[in-house]
């Protein structure tokens, strides 16, 4: 163009082309598909072995292959968590397992134990190797160490703040992944064996039973020579007991800073969470990242996004270590959880444009007259009151009460398969 250069510089709209990856949890094939469909650039899943969350739904080799095929259509990557600290007895079968991950087209693994790192480099060299947060990586010298060891990416300790991330980026040229949303350990990851002692379950091999979230009672114990120790209570009868439960992480407001810092991957926690949770959180962060990158200079947080996140939250949230060491307001004493203020009640299977009738799979109780809300990547959220409901055979029904039942009713707006329907939850 022939414009005078003096005019260009002030009018050009700044756009960020190098977006960070939005990385979502996927505890099952269904969740994987939802996460990718709702805008995740990558998902992390668990396999049969070598991962924490041994009780989360884990993927078989066939399911992984199907997941890979699905993700490919969207250009999304799949990472497999293999982040246990292995005991000798866990070493068998590791090579075959890693070779299989490579064969089915997994993009990378998330690892803590050097045994798995080096075995992977030897037997499955095309897999990317990402250092797990289980190593509690907290400084740039340690980041440099792992870079020299040939890792492709490091996931930081949850205790690392923005300033520290910037210094790491400045000092070491390696991909950095950090958590932006979800539940978190209150300890340095990998450095907690409360569950081993309290319940004989090995937290570093996936057995953690969240002992940190239980109630305890704080005492002082005085020792005088030659006498039995004397205990005094450090709480009154009506005080809340001692607890260590942290609020869940929520960095929605920090996304611009994370993008500017050049963080490569923004991770959402929660492989045990529902598809509704995954869909909601992923779609909100998708919108935030896209909106910021499209026009960073005029970006503002839309209050709707924050409201939207609250619809699937069952615990209060906070920004944890992002700016400061968290204080008491970032922890929970007394009551530990809240109910989300919306329930996921249906998943769209089909929409008939001629009749405006939606076909829906029931996921929770709803009935004629209910005010429901639809959301999904292709639409703007809208609410509407349900009129007549029909079952699969076309019989009119008042209530959709059977799980996974197929039902139909009329809508004012267009929806798409995989869109979700939620209903406000009423709590006494």
């Amino acid at each position, binding site marked *: 163009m022939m414009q005078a250069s003096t005019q260009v510089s002030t009018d050009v709209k700044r756009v960020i082309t190098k977006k960070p990856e939005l990385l979502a949890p996927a505890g099952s094939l269904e969740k994987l598909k939802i996460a990718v469909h709702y805008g995740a650039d990558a998902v992390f899943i668990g396999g049969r072995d070598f991962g924490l969350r041994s009780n989360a739904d884990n993927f078989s080799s066939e399911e992984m292959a199907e997941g890979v095929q699905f993700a490919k259509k969207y250009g999304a990557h799949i990472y497999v968590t293999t982040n246990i600290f292995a005991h*000798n007895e*866990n070493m068998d079968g590791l090579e075959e397992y890693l070779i299989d991950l490579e064969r089915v087209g997994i993009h990378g693994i998330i690892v803590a134990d050097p045994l798995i790192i080096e075995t992977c480099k030897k037997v499955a060299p095309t897999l990317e190797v990402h250092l797990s947060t289980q190593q509690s990586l907290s400084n*740039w010298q340690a980041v440099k160490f792992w870079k020299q060891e040939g890792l492709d990416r490091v996931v930081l300790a949850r205790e690392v703040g923005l300033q520290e991330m910037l210094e790491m980026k400045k000092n070491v040229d390696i991909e950095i992944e950090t958590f932006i949303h979800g539940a978190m350990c209150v300890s340095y990851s990998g450095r907690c064996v409360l569950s081993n002692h309290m319940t004989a379950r090995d937290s*570093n091999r996936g057995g953690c039973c969240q002992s940190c979230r239980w109630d305890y009672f704080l005492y002082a114990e005085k020792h005088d020579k030659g006498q039995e120790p004397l205990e005094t209570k450090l709480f009154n009868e009506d005080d809340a007991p001692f607890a260590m439960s942290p609020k869940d992480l929520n960095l929605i407001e920090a996304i611009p800073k994370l993008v500017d810092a050049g963080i490569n991957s923004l991770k959402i926690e929660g492989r045990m969470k529902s598809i509704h949770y995954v869909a909601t959180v992923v779609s909100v962060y998708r919108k935030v990242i896209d909106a910021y990158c499209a026009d960073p200079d005029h970006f503002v947080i839309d209050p709707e996004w924050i409201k939207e996140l609250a619809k699937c939250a069952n615990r209060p949230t906070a920004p944890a270590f992002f700016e400061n060491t968290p204080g008491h307001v970032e922890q929970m004493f007394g009551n530990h959880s809240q109910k989300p203020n919306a329930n996921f009640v249906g998943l769209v299977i089909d929409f008939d444009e001629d009749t405006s009738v939606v076909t829906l799979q029931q996921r929770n109780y709803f009935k004629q007259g209910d005010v429901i809300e639809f959301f999904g990547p292709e639409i703007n959220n809208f609410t509407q009151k349900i009129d007549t409901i029909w079952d699969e055979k076309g019989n009119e029904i008042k209530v959709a009460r059977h799980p996974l039942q197929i039902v139909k009713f009329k809508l004012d707006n267009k929806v798409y398969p995989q869109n979700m329907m939620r209903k406000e939850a009423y709590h006494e």
Partner: protein
Amino acid sequence: MKKPELLVTPANVTEVEGLVDAGATAVMVGEEEYGIRLAGEFNRDDIENALKIAHQKGAKVYVAMNALFHNESLPKLPDYIQFLSKIGVDAIVFGDPAVLMSVREHAPELKLHWNTETTATNWYSANYWGRKGSTRAVLARELNMDSIVEIKEKAEVDIEVQVHGMSCMFQSKRLLLGNYMTFQGKDLQISGRGKNQNLILHDPERKAKYPIWEDKNGTHIMSPKDMCMIDELEELFEVGVDSFKIEGIQKDYSYMRQVTSLYREAIDLYFLHPDKYNGQKENLFTELKRIQPSNRVLDTGFFFKETVY
């Protein structure tokens, strides 16, 4: 076959001599700035003095730099490492790779012991950190006897195993005690461990009590029981574990002296003849129970316990 080292953690300089006299052949010391979960605070002068005393008596001195470091701590590492190298400490105990990087650069002759407390769980990792420069792996406390034996058999580095005392269950960077007090609206001095007062968490469900404290490195919670392996050392002797550690956190000096000399006796008896140890081990255990404080029950840690996951 050589005798295992008997490693103890004194609380101050004056304890060093007595503990070595009682039979310790190595001590681990350090300061909160670099080390975590120490029995006591040793500044640079203290370390130098401890070193003089220990070396005179033929015992080794290891210095704890086992904290998890954040960027802000990195600049002070080289100077401390150079100081430790200059005075001639026998090894640095580390968990964070930052220490390893700094030692490589500033004092490559210094020996390194790898100790992350909870993550040394297989022989491969022990050897991995060996290849990176450490000469010893301190095994996780959550391993059972079979795992320990197998690791020792396959290890290319020395293996240290804790045989006595409390172990760490938890470290958080958050100031969990301070936060609780603030939440309760109380202004209580909770930071340090007092000379004769400790804080404990009661867990009514499991009828257990866990020592807890807060310091520069965050909040630490310790095991409800003291492990005691004095009558179960055969397999560790047989496989040739290189170092037995007695943890001195929250233990008084006279207790530590007595425990050290009991383990000394156990080691010496075994190396006189395994039968002599076998004949005496019950008595040693009885003797130990006699001096054990009533609020700290003895058990065998995870040596004979299976964990599931």
